């Protein structure tokens, strides 16, 4: 009896130890999850905090008189006249009318610097839109210079930052603010324009279109090739040393650093096949090389998860192997394949390194309109802006990261949604 109780007390003792170990282990898990979530929260919080300002920008209201003599244009249909027109004169005279007591070259230059140097061209567009304004005067909200924008936002936030502004400019802004002639407004330029050296004129659209075109090329090439390769390897290829060798190498390719693919693209596509550099076509080709292993591996996993009983049933009915694949395996594996493709695309969307090697790091102002137009992509745009010295680019960088992240979140969410939607139970 005493032996039995001793035995029991030993078990109880060890039980307490096991329970403590389990409780400890649960806490490790909770702490790990907390650290992960905290890191994500800090990252997102920091980006949003820095970047949200870029979605609004500063405009200044001035009376503009569209004086024909001032611009040197009397016929708006004459493109030569339009090209030679002195549009900056409009903004300069508008500023001079607002602040008539300015004298001296440097003060005049400071005054002119209140407005973006693109403001004159905005007036030209406005005039072309409504030609009846020629010779008349109207009050217009015009884009302010990025230094003014930075100062005005920081001043509104209660921590004025006037590093590059002169005292006079600060006073002028104060006056404009008192008269309600300066305000923050939704920054449509950021979403409607390409890159620019002037932060207030720089936009994300060029890079977004570039990314979109590049991803189209990537998807069009990598999805069919990847799915065909996966189907062949899973359903048709004999199991021998060769297919083992191929399988090992596909897995190896998935682990190759992406910059190597950039070098490969440079050597093969550009130097050998003479594909033009810095265009969505070459970007898509290189990213195809990079995403193919991902798509092949996920597609093979999706095909493997189709129960063999379905194949047997179809074969037993006298379906050819091609019919088995087309009628039964492919429809069941498709959700998994699509998920893999979207994850591969999301990976490609965020990829920078291989694109640096093929010239997509270039400064490109125009919005690309085709697969062979010079373009850049979102992550490269972020890299370029992060590298720029102007303070206003800090918030642009964060805003561009937000745009990229929202694209990634949309893609990953749609992958989950597609999987849930198309998944069939058996």
């Amino acid at each position: 009896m005493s032996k039995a109780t001793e035995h029991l007390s030993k078990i109880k003792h060890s039980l307490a130890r096991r329970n403590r170990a389990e409780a400890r282990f649960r806490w490790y898990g909770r702490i790990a999850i907390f650290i992960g979530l905290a890191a994500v929260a800090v990252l997102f919080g920091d980006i949003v905090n820095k970047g949200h300002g870029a979605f609004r920008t500063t405009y200044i209201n001035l009376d503009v008189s569209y004086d024909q003599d001032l611009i040197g244009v009397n016929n708006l249909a004459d493109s030569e006249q339009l090209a030679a027109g002195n549009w900056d004169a409009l903004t300069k005279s508008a500023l001079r009318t607002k602040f008539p007591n300015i004298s001296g070259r440097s003060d005049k230059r400071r005054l002119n610097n209140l407005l973006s140097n693109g403001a004159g061209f905005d007036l030209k567009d406005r005039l072309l839109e409504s030609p009846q304004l020629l010779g008349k005067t109207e009050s217009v909200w015009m884009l302010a210079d990025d230094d003014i924008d930075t100062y005005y936002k920081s001043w509104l936030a209660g921590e004025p930052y006037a590093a590059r502004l002169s005292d006079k400019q600060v006073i002028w802004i104060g006056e404009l603010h008192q008269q309600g002639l300066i305000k923050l407004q939704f920054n449509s330029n950021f979403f409607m324009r390409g890159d620019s050296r002037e932060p207030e004129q720089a936009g994300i659209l060029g890079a977004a279109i570039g990314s979109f075109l590049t991803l189209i090329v990537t998807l069009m090439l990598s999805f069919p090739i990847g799915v065909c390769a996966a189907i062949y390897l899973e359903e048709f290829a004999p199991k021998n040393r060769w297919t083992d060798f191929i399988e090992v190498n596909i897995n190896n390719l998935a682990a190759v650093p992406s910059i190597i693919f950039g070098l490969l693209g440079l050597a093969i596509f550009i130097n050998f096949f003479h594909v033009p550099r810095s265009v969505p076509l070459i970007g898509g080709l290189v990213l195809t090389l990079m995403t193919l292993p991902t798509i092949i591996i996920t597609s093979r996993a999706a095909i493997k998860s189709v129960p063999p009983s379905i194949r047997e049933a179809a074969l037993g009915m006298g379906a050819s192997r091609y019919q088995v694949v087309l009628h039964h395996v492919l429809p069941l594996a498709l959700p998994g394949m699509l998920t893999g493709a979207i994850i591969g695309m999301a990976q490609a969307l965020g990829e920078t390194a291989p694109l640096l090697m093929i010239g997509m790091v270039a400064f490109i102002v125009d919005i690309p309109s085709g697969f062979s137009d010079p373009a850049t992509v979102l992550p490269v745009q972020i890299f370029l802006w992060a590298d720029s010295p102007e303070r206003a680019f800090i918030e642009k960088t964060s805003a561009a990261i937000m745009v990229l992240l929202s694209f990634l979140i949309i893609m990953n969410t749609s992958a989950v949604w597609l999987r849930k939607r198309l998944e069939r139970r058996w």
Partner: protein
Amino acid sequence: MSPAETPKAVKVVKKSKTAPKSKKAVAPKIAPVHNLDIGDHHVTVGEIFSDKPKMTMRNINVFYADKQAIHDVSIDIAENEVIAMIGPSGCGKSTFLRALNRMNDTVDGCRVEGDIRMDGEDLYAPKLDVVELRARVGMVFQKPNPFPKSIYDNVAYGPKIHGLADTRVDLDEIVENSLRKASLWEEVKERLHQPGTGLSGGQQQRLCIARAIAVSPEVILMDEPCSALDPIATARIEELIEELSQNFTIAIVTHSMQQAARVSHRTAYFHLGKLIEVNPTKQVFTMPEHPLTEAYITGRFG
């Protein structure tokens, strides 16, 4: 055979000499058989051949890579008969069945030797297309495996891929007839376009049978068709086999001796890849010729 007749088969087994009289003493009274080796040279006993053979198999050997699963099996399957293949697990009965419609072709490393003919035509001839063969020799599997499609599409699949129906009306007719023959029509006629996977296990298996007979095969192979089903569903499938035997030749693998006794005309007993005995079912379960058959059906091993 109807379920009402079932007790007869059970009684048949009880009649055999070694079977215990009282239920209580079942376990101790059966003397276990330990030496199951039957040596390399073996001749199948019983009525191996038929006057009216549908399929003839001669000297069949099946190998999985280096391992031999079937040793020198010869047997005939007669027209419109139900032949049951029984034997302990791993005896090769399923492997043998799958050789009859060349399903073993899909298994890597599987090799079939010997001569298999249907109506005199060599099924392993190089120019024979397995697609055509499988339209003539249908198969029902152990686990019900309807396609994840509608009930209608499941049955219509075979006729569609083989181009058996010219019009939609023809196809509808084939589907209805097949479902009626599989005695499933009354249960599903209101929901033909709902997924076949939503049916119960027994209904799914009858759907698979309907799918197999939709292409009007000459022979139907059934690989333990009731092993995943409950007794009531099993009884319905067995009734169905009885009905189908009027139009089709059926080869059924089963690990239930009672089932073999209930549904089949002839029974083949496999042991370690060898065919031990083939005889009319009644004889196999009352007066088996071979001592191993007797040992197996009386439950002394397996």
